[in-house]
């Protein structure tokens, strides 16, 4: 016979389940409401505000001070990642990866859309004159590659890059399949021989199939009737910590790579904290 837990413990576990259900419901409603009623352009602006408050990403903050994660250290030390040269770093945040890469002897062209984090990143590499930090987004990289204009054009065009790195989870902020494809095509155009390393927040296959998730289609239908300007897609998430973010499946990463002329050298789903993939131009 399976031993039973004492009554007090069972009550604690039951109240925990209720608490989890309420938290899930709040998150679910927030996600559906915000992705439906905040149009795409405003989402980016909101994310910039959310990230401007992230002191932990700035030099001295606890995330910055973590330095490179083990998986990043291993990826940087292993071919096809080059042992030296120039790196294009997108979604540089407050400079955690940037500072480490400069310390390893790389020259880095980094960019970050949040003004405050960008300033922090600049400050973190003030001792490395061959590296530069530009306030720009992934959209600006696409603009640079396609129209040869924008804040990144002067830094990313007519320059050769030995590797490209998308800062931790920054690829999750490219929300749609077409935007991901456009970004990877732009990256490939700008760095046609460079390996591309990206770490991302993943969602398991079969996510959003819980009991409460059955409410999602009804909420979506209601908002459509009320003429909401947009709608949430599977994987679209929102929290006060992350802002608007799209949790990627491995299939979405594979599809984006396949359709933009990259092959996946490896795609590691685990161990935590972050799945990551290394792509090579085909």
């Amino acid at each position, binding site marked *: 016979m399976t031993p*039973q837990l004492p009554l007090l413990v069972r009550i604690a576990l039951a109240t925990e389940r209720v608490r989890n259900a309420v938290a899930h419901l709040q998150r679910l409603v927030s996600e559906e409401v*915000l992705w439906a009623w*905040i149009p795409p352009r405003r989402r980016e602006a909101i994310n910039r505000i959310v990230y401007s408050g992230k002191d932990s990403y700035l030099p001295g903050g606890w995330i910055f001070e973590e330095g490179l994660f083990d998986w990043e250290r291993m990826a940087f030390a292993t071919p096809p990642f080059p042992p030296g040269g120039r790196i294009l770093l997108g979604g540089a945040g407050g400079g955690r990866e940037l500072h480490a890469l400069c310390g390893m002897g790389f020259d880095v062209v980094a960019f970050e859309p949040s003004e405050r984090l960008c300033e922090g990143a600049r400050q973190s590499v003030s001792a490395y004159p061959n590296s530069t930090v530009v306030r720009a987004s992934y959209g600006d990289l696409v603009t640079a590659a396609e129209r040869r204009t924008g804040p990144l054009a002067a830094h990313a065009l007519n320059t050769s890059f030995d590797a490209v790195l998308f800062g931790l989870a920054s690829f999750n902020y490219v929300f749609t399949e077409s935007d991901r494809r456009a970004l990877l095509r732009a990256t490939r155009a700008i760095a046609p021989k460079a390996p591309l390393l990206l770490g991302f927040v993943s969602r398991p296959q079969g996510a959003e199939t819980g009991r409460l998730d059955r409410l999602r289609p009804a909420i979506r239908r209601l908002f459509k009737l009320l003429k909401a300007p947009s709608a949430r897609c599977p994987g679209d998430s*929102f929290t006060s910590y992350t802002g608007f973010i799209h949790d990627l499946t491995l299939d979405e990463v594979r599809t984006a790579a396949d359709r933009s002329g990259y092959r996946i050298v490896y795609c590691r789903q685990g161990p*935590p904290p972050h799945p990551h993939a290394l792509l090579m131009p085909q």
Partner: protein
Amino acid sequence: MRLPPLVRISFAAERVLNAAARLHTLFWDEVLWAWFGPQRREAINRIIWGRANSYLPGGNTFERGLFEWERLAIAKPPFPQAGRILLGGAGGGRELVQLCRRGFDVVAFEPSGLCDGARQAVSSFPNSVVVQASYRDLVTAAQEHTGPLASHVLNASFDAVLFGWQSFDYVLTELDRHELLCATRTLAPKAPLLLSSWMVRDAENGRLDCLRPPIRRICELLGAPSARRPGDVFWPCGGFLHLMSQGELEAAADGSGYRILDFRPSAVSYPHAMLMPQ
């Protein structure tokens, strides 16, 4: 630019729920630690871990294999490249099976029903063995030469000791940690010891933490047999555990004849330390 009202409402709702979650956690930490003494805590932990199917072969946690930090730690000195390993808190065999595949012989032990899964996981490695036993049994083996581990750990030499992922957090008191490390050092006097811990995440000085002393006093008035101390937590999926501070880890190592070779107090990866007998 200000955030739109809808976003601000969402943030406010999240803050309210976070506060409720904090209150819930705090209340049950205090109540459960007060009303269950050491022996019942261990029994409850065994029941909870006996249900942790993701730790069994085929489960999500098991199938992750070694974590990056584990892979890095066992790939370089002072961790040996071959030999016999003593593995405590083996769970369902996640680390165990990876160590066996790397050619190590392992004496592993685990107090919960996960032990059967660990046995199954290494059934094709005849030089490795899994015993249903706790850290307390290791101390008994070292001090009294009896108990379920005695025949497996006495008169055997170990080249390394590994405390399975976060299992050191289940050694709940300073005295127990001291005795366990002394026992480990007695049984494996030259072996490096790799351990991990969740470590203390907050100082328990938030606004809601002022509710802790009154809850504790009420439990005491009602005749609770025990009491919670800083770092003691109850996790629904993990049971009773103690989140150590760095100072507690250092004290445990120093007091039992170990020196800390390498300590990574990462908040993103898992805090872990490599200890060497002095």
